[in-house]
């Protein structure tokens, strides 16, 4: 009987869980059966036959022209226990793999955020440039228009007259409210109010 430890299974070979004993029993039912000799490689590692091989045993259980050397089951050498260092490495791998996954995803997120903020900044900067350009153009156009309007107003064809005493209305100031203190507001860029008394109505 050969014990087949699953942990030492070779890659690309299917796991084998059926004990050979049952197989042997089945094969015995079919008649005399050849013993499957497990050829061993030079390093002592067992090389198991594939399932296909076993299924293709003929009725008589004969393998290809190799006379069975013995009818006994060879005991495979037990696979060596996993060395400590390998166990350690595998354990470390188990711990580090999810950590790596976490870190990589975090890094991807951070990178994505960096790219996004830079892009957003870039867009806002373009917008700022556009807005400052608009502001500049508006101020220039506004001032030139004001100047043009004033020039037209002065010209005699406009039908406007300069304000003189004869067409100015003077009104008395109402009595000031008893406890009010008027704080002149700070001048704003476009329309500053000069802080002095002026005839009301204007």
């Amino acid at each position, binding site marked *: 009987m050969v014990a087949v430890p699953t942990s030492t299974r070779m890659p690309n070979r299917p796991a084998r869980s059926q004990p050979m004993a049952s197989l042997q029993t089945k094969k015995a039912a079919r008649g005399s059966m050849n013993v499957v000799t497990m050829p061993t*490689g*030079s*390093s002592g*590692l067992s*090389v198991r*036959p*594939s399932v296909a*091989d076993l299924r*293709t*045993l*003929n009725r008589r259980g*004969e*393998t*290809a*022209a*190799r006379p069975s050397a013995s009818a006994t089951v060879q005991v495979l050498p037990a696979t060596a226990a996993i060395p400590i260092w390998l166990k350690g490495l595998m354990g470390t791998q188990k711990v580090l793999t999810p950590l790596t996954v976490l870190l990589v995803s975090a890094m991807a997120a951070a990178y994505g955020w960096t790219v996004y*903020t*830079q*892009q957003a*900044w*870039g*867009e806002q*900067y*373009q917008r*700022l440039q556009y807005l*400052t*350009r608009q502001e*500049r*153009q508006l*101020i*220039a156009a506004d*001032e*030139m228009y*004001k*100047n043009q309007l*004033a020039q037209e107003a*002065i010209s005699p064809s406009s039908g406007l007259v*300069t*304000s*003189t*005493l004869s067409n*100015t209305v*003077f009104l*008395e*100031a*109402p*009595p000031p409210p008893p406890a009010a203190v008027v704080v002149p507001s*700070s*001048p*704003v*860029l*476009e*329309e*500053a109010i*000069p802080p*002095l*008394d*002026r*005839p009301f109505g*204007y």
Partner: protein
Amino acid sequence: MTRYGSPKPHSVLRGEGRRASTSRLPRSIRKRPSASFSESRRAPVASVWQTPKVRLLMVWGILLLSLLGLAANLLRLQVVLAPELQERAKEQQTLVLNPTPPRRPIVDRLGNAIAVDRPVYTLYAHPKLFKQESGAIAQTLAPVINRPAGDLEQLFATGESGLEVVYTLPEDVAKRVQRLGLDGLELIERQQRLYPQKTLFGDVVGFVNAERLGQAGIEMSQEEQLQTEAHSMNLRRTGLGSVLPDGTAENFPTTDDSYLRLTLDSRLQRSVRQALQATITAHGAKRGAVLVMDVRDGALVSAVTEPTYDPNQFFEADPALHQNWAVSDLYEPGSTFKPINVAIALESGAVQPNQVFQDDGQIYIGEWTIQNSDYEYSGAPGARTLTEIVQYSSNVGMVRVMQQLSAQDYFSWLEKIGLGEKTGIDLPSETASNLKPKEAFLSDPVEAATTAFGQGFALTPVQMIQLQSSLANGGMLTTPHVVDGLYNADNQRQWQPDLPAPRRLFSAQTTQQVLTMMEAVVDDGTGTAAQIPGYRVAGKTGTAQKASEFGGYSSGARITSFVSFFPADAPRYSILVLIDEPQGDNAYGGTVAAPLAKTVMEAMITILGIPPSRPEEVMGDRFSPAPASGTDPDQYADEALESW
């Protein structure tokens, strides 16, 4: 002897493997090997290479080697070639911007822009970089920049690179050219100074030249406040060309948003300029100037000289106009200087306000004859009070008045009020007034005599209004200035010019006495043309003969002037009007300059909001004097005085 000749490890291995598997197959299924093959299936393992373990190790070894190779390459790139590669990346990614910093805008008292910067572009073509036919490019470009395509094609044929196509392209046209995306066209940005008000402030604000240095006016004298620092910016670019925020300075891209505010009022400036132009045209004068100053602090509310120029096209104007003649040209003031002399006489104690002097109409001093301007038809008026001397602008009377002071005292007074020095106004090219040297002044009594009626020395219009303002504000000599200060975008003043503190010339009592005399000039003297109903105006006319270049005075050329304080009960503004060489027989201060001063003052009433001194005159029967706690007009005037 195998079929394969000399055994190769992998084929032997394959052979082995085949043999190993086929040896267990039933005969019926197994492939029939060739004879030589069947011979070799019993051959022993040819070499150690054929064992699976070794094969495994070999695969592992190859993979490890390639991994090491990769690691070595990585090392090479990251460590060995790192500096060179970083250099190349930097070169590709970084963008060094040296933007021309825009000059700070100049605005007037109300915030109307007088001078602003705007970017314009110069278009260059490099035909060697054209990807299309130059004809096609010319066709595409022509409608955008509004040039004939044939001209452009000709231009492209003249050279390989660096052809200037358009010197000044406005911003929106430049953006359109950029959007065409044609290779071989280059746009270079520069800042252009725009003066939207054109000729309105030309003489005050000046202009900048191609190197963006102020050459005249405020642009020149306030160069330091108008220039902003040029920051060289290192920016990183992404592959698409957009800018990355990494590594930019703390305050990128905030721009400097301060502006220079002037004390001038553009509304008044416009009215004054229009009136001045009309007067000059009416009298055929050579030039004229009107200065309106706030007497409290010396701020000029309006400074108009005619003729003037458009700073947008400064190159087309006569270079002589680039200097503001109100600041840089001297003139002999004539009779407008008399009130100052009276103040000197009163302040020195040599003369009393109600003193009477003998006015003979004509006197002789040494070999010189001095006579009144109206001597021909008025003769000798006889005894005159000080007020009358000022009222009727008597030259002889003034000589008599100033003879009460010693020449020494008189000269030291003239120096004290600042004659011979500059005012310190913040416009460039100011000329200091000239006064005869002390020895010359003291040696000849005619010097004191001519100075008494305002001839024999010269000063600038700005200095004249500075001295006159001292009579209006209670005797303090202020510094005339045009610049209010540097404000930031929140309209907080960040910087203001460092003006010397006002210094006292006369006592308030003296100036009040002189003001009363000057009010008489307008009420009933030579300045009646400046009367304004409802307002009290104090003024003085002046008609000075101009010195001719051949020595002495020219007979025909004169400079007429009028100075006034408005309103006289609590003077806030002083106005100086100068008309240079008006033509005609009746060209005097009272007939040429005084009416213009009246127009200016009327404009000031509505623009600056000056309440009337005698409201009943302007409001007629609508005016009802309120009870004492209400709006008593005198109280109103007092309140106005307090608030001022």
